[in-house]
């Protein structure tokens, strides 16, 4: 089918070869900084940097496009809400009771970009790191294995859910469920047969998965779990980690001391 089985795109880029712990650290720092900084220029800069990052890691533009398309609805919503309800400065136009301002547009864009940038940061990790490496990395950083595995399983389920939705939609449409021409609430209501079947299927699937875990001895009482995947921290990883921490510290310092990136967002 059309969809990839995994978020992960196999490759040999520098990002792929980086230790998963460093990449997880990167995602954490990126999200932290994106919340800390509050100006539109900062958001623009961050987004640009992240797009460059993805490019240098060889992430195909198609995948990037998919991600942006997925995040666009929520981004757009944030943009619109900000523009509609937080007028700032000179008014450009009036739509009914709402005043569209330049400042409002800028801030709306900033909010939308922030979400996009966070998505890009997190997906940089997902695209360049195998699910098992993420789980192992989290475990190595101290997360209890059960929790790390849960996150890994959640990732595993997303493509399954998407494929499930497609299969179910087809089956229901073949019974005469007509979605053509319906939009918004009407469409959502008409899709109920699809959502209900999807939820029930998912419950069944997760029950199956839980049994499979048990049948493989998961959580054996009294036994300390060992790990097959070895994580090796190389010089390159140390370098990147150092750069990452230095950059984060620098931005933090500049922000606190000189108000770098301060703003209304």
């Amino acid at each position: 089918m059309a969809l990839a089985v995994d978020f992960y795109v196999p490759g040999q880029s520098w990002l792929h070869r980086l230790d998963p712990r460093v990449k997880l650290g990167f995602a954490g720092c990126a999200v932290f900084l994106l919340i800390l900084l509050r100006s539109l220029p900062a958001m623009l800069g961050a987004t640009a940097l992240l797009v460059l990052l993805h490019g240098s890691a060889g992430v195909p533009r198609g995948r990037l496009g998919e991600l942006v398309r997925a995040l666009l609805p929520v981004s757009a919503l944030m943009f619109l809400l900000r523009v509609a309800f937080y007028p700032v400065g000179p008014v450009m136009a009036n739509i009914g009771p709402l005043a569209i301002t330049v400042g409002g547009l800028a801030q709306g864009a900033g909010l939308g970009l922030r979400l996009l940038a966070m998505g890009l940061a997190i997906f940089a990790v997902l695209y360049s790191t195998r699910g098992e490496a993420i789980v192992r990395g989290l475990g190595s950083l101290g997360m209890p294995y059960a929790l790390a595995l849960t996150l890994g399983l959640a990732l595993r389920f997303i493509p399954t859910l998407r494929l499930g939705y497609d299969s179910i939609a087809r089956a229901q449409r073949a019974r005469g469920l007509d979605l053509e021409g319906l939009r918004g609430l009407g469409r959502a209501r008409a899709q109920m047969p699809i959502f209900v079947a999807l939820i029930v299927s998912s419950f069944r699937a997760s029950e199956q998965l839980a049994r499979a875990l048990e049948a493989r001895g998961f959580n054996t009482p009294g036994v300390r779990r060992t790990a097959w995947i070895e994580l090796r921290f190389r010089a390159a990883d140390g370098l990147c980690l150092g750069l990452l921490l230095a950059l984060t510290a620098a931005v933090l310092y500049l922000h606190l001391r000189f108000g770098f990136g301060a703003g209304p967002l």
Partner: protein
Amino acid sequence: MIAAPRLALHSVGFSYPNQLPALRDVSLAIEPGEFLALLGPNGSGKSTLAMHLNGLLRPAAGQVTHDGEDIASFSVGVLARQVAYLFQNPDHMIFCETVREELAFGPRSLGLEEGEVAERTEAALDAFGLAAVAQRQPAGLGFGARRAVSAAAVFAMGTPVVVLDEPTTGLDQGAATRLLDLFKDRQRQGGTVVLITHDMQLVARYAQRCVLLEGGAVSAVGSPQDLFGQAELLRRAGILEPPVVALARDLIPSGGAGIPLSPEEFCRAFREQVAQRG
């Protein structure tokens, strides 16, 4: 039931996004009232082809016609009145509170009036032996029962053409034949049945004509007799020939009667051969 249309694919080509072509220049006609088996290894394009018959998939090249008319402009909802599709996984269909509602959903979506819907629902409940669980929640039933519910739901739609996509996986042979017998009845009343399956014993028993797909193209068309007579073809297609056929190939040189497809046929043919030799 309305008369079944003649379904046809004309040089149909299709690819899933970012993948190699799933169908390559496929031309095929399905006559009204026939029981057709679509065969081939996994990934050969059987379901892809079948989903073109009711508009779930639209060809990238070529046309699909019903009685000569291109179906490109008709929505799936409209085409569902002609061609119903039973998918392999019953849990991809089941969503209602009761079995009865589940069976009624299809006819109702097709726009039939309540009286007709109720009639068809009751008929399907009886035919599939589901009357006892009519008020139960289908999702809570065992697998075999859920399979029966999904098949009954498609049956209740009463369409002239039905596509059955691997309808018997996970069913014991008794349940499998009961299910197919019900659709065979439909065929006797003039309906068309398209069966996608790996079970060659079912093909031998029910199909009048077989279409073999390999790598998205039609590689052979013929009766089950014709097909099973060609060991090389079956092997290439990843099809396991029934033991009876393999045995007949060795012990009974092909005569005019064609290759035996069941133990009874084999027995008869073998007896005749012994009588001739003796």
